[in-house]
């Protein structure tokens, strides 16, 4: 399966298993989503379970919040992560906080799926990766999948979570992994992570995935950048351990700490801008926990602190060359 099919399969499994699961958003019903993620689900499960909404992200988030309060388990789509901001108040002040503010009397287990990240020539407003706008909000779980296999397992866990989840999908990886060369468009084809069971399975939130084992340097990433890092590590010729964080909140402290203690060196890679990006949180947390194991300063390779560009997106997004350079630099000391 490719990532679209894996996500579709997760949604299909959950619609089958739990009559409280309801799916809606812009274009997700009849048409099956602009990326085809909900293709066929309305036909199979009925238009009361999978349906289209007005173009109003704030209204989608607010109604999902209300449905969640009243016992449903809504899975809503924000068509692009760039368009999530009309819903920001509803997510940050309402969805994230209602369990706490009501003393546990009310909660709303909404999952918000949203395609994120660049690499599709989407310019300013179809490319951003705003995960750190949500990791800074207590009460939310934040998940970022990277492959068909983890997309399905993480989405099922997100839907079953009784806490709200912001679920980022790297749109450049929907139909194939992305290794940092924009001119190559590989498919998921025979990739081991494309082996996705039709049946229900879960990947727990808060568990990272070790993509490659290594001894000399730890590379931490999430989303599409995981595959770019894989390519960069091969190019570097170094023995690097690649960690795909998968869940940003909560994150897998043990896997990260154990790896840093082993390698003593670390590079963090993400697409989003550098300043106040989630890499800053990772870097600070690692030095708090592993300072005396570090052999060299932690390096971050990220998008620039600028708006996301259109035709020059390959100069914006971290590529293998920049990552190899960072690996070499942390290995020099």
């Amino acid at each position: 399966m490719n990532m679209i099919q894996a996500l579709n399969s997760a949604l299909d499994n959950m619609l089958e298993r739990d009559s409280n699961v309801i799916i809606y958003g812009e274009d997700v019903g009849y048409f099956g989503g602009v990326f085809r993620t909900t293709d066929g689900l309305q036909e199979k499960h009925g238009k009361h379970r999978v349906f289209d909404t007005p173009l109003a992200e704030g209204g989608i988030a607010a109604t999902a919040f209300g449905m969640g309060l009243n016992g449903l388990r809504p899975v809503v789509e924000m068509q692009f992560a760039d368009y999530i901001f009309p819903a920001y108040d509803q997510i940050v002040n309402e969805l994230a906080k209602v369990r706490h503010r009501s003393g546990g009397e009310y909660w709303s287990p909404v999952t918000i799926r949203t395609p994120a990240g660049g690499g599709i020539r989407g310019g300013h407003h179809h490319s951003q990766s705003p995960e750190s706008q949500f990791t800074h909000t207590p009460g939310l779980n934040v998940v970022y999948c990277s492959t068909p296999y983890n997309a399905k397992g993480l989405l099922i866990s997100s839907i079953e979570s009784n806490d709200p989840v912001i679920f980022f999908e790297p749109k450049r990886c929907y139909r194939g992994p992305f290794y940092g060369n924009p001119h190559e468009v590989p498919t998921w084809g025979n990739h081991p992570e494309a082996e996705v069971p039709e049946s229900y399975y879960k990947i727990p939130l808060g568990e990272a995935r070790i993509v490659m084992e290594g001894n000399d340097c730890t590379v931490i990433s999430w989303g599409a950048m995981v595959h770019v890092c894989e390519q960069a590590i091969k190019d570097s010729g170094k023995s690097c351990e690649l960690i795909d964080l998968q869940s940003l909140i909560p994150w897998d402290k043990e896997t990260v700490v154990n790896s840093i203690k082993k390698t003593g060196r670390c590079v963090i890679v993400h697409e989003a801008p550098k300043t106040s990006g989630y890499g800053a949180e990772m870097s600070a947390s690692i030095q708090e926990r592993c300072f005396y194991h570090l052999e060299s300063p932690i390096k971050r390779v990220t998008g620039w602190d600028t708006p996301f560009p259109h035709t020059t997106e390959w100069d914006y997004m971290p590529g293998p060359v920049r990552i190899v350079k960072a690996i070499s630099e942390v290995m020099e000391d």
Partner: protein
Amino acid sequence: MTKKIDESLNIPTAPFRPGDEASFDLWPWTPEDFAKPDPKKCTADDTIMIAKGLVRVLDDDNKACGEWDPKLKPEFMISGLEYMVRLRIFDDRMMKMQRTGKLSFYMRSFGEECVAIAQTMALNEEDWIFPTYRQPGAQFVRGRDMVSMICHCIGNVEDNIKGRQMPVHYSYRDGRFISVSSPVGTQFSQAVGVAMASQYKGLDEVTITWIGDGASAEGDYHYALNFASIFKAPVILNVVNNQWAISTHANFATGVGEFASRGIPYGIPSIRVDGNDFLALFSVTKWARERASAGMGPTHIEVLTYRSGAHSSSDDPSRYRPSDEHLKWPGGDPIERLKRHLIEIGEWDEDLHNQLEERIDGEVMDAYKEAVKYGDLANGPYPEADTIFTEVYEELPWHLREQMDEMMGD
């Protein structure tokens, strides 16, 4: 030709400011003026007259008249009167506590007691209440104990929401009264979701929600009307037009002088009702519930009233409006009006009313004395410090566990 700068931008004005003589034009409408449409057939266009007019039942002689008269039994009206009197006395006591430093903050419902009480009394027990901070009175109708309410306002060890929100931000699950949120307007569109869930489950449950005239300028209001209309959600959407959003007059929230008719272009039957007329408000709400229950979808109601007191304990209305303005409000006082009606029909008198006030005053004092036994604002006991960390998530994640341990000194 270029206009002078000070003439080029239209800035609305409040009708009266301190030093002005407040005078409201009397409403031209009487209770007999508006027929009651069939709730199961009525379209939005059928309601243009009642959206632009004003549904009333109690006339100037305190008699119940017209088609909207719900013909309530005297004992039912007396219980409504009792809830309203209780809310006013409770509010006055809490405000005194705030003024003497025993509460951090308070908000009264003064002049608007009828709104949540008459409307909640028109609903069924399983109906959902999605309030603002100006509808705490619904909790009396749903049976909440005053001690528990006061403990919340203090934020002591018995506060059911564990000292997490400011006073008056109640949550009362047993009464299906949903947690109050400070950001104004957010509940309006959320309530549509609550109603859609009831509809999805095939239950005969209706959701009622309120928004202020000021907050109706927020996007959430428009999301709510649009979603409710499109999905035919069984929801009662009330705009409480109490004239003032802190110091901002309703003229800054609407360019047309009224709110009810805004529902009509959304295809939602809409009504403007005298919000200080217990019988009219009950009747209109019952009508809206009947529509929702029959699968006819939402109703949009402008509840015309007047915020007789300050917005909250933090503002002084004499700084932005004439101090006697509320006394000139043609809708009068909701408690006074229901009381006079009950006297008019021979079911009530001044002695009974005084006895009622005395009894409730005693009950409120007793509740207050009991509540402070569980802790006062100055000395506590407050909820345990580690409750900061619980219920952020269903289970405590490791990073919060770490921070909690750090705070507790482990």
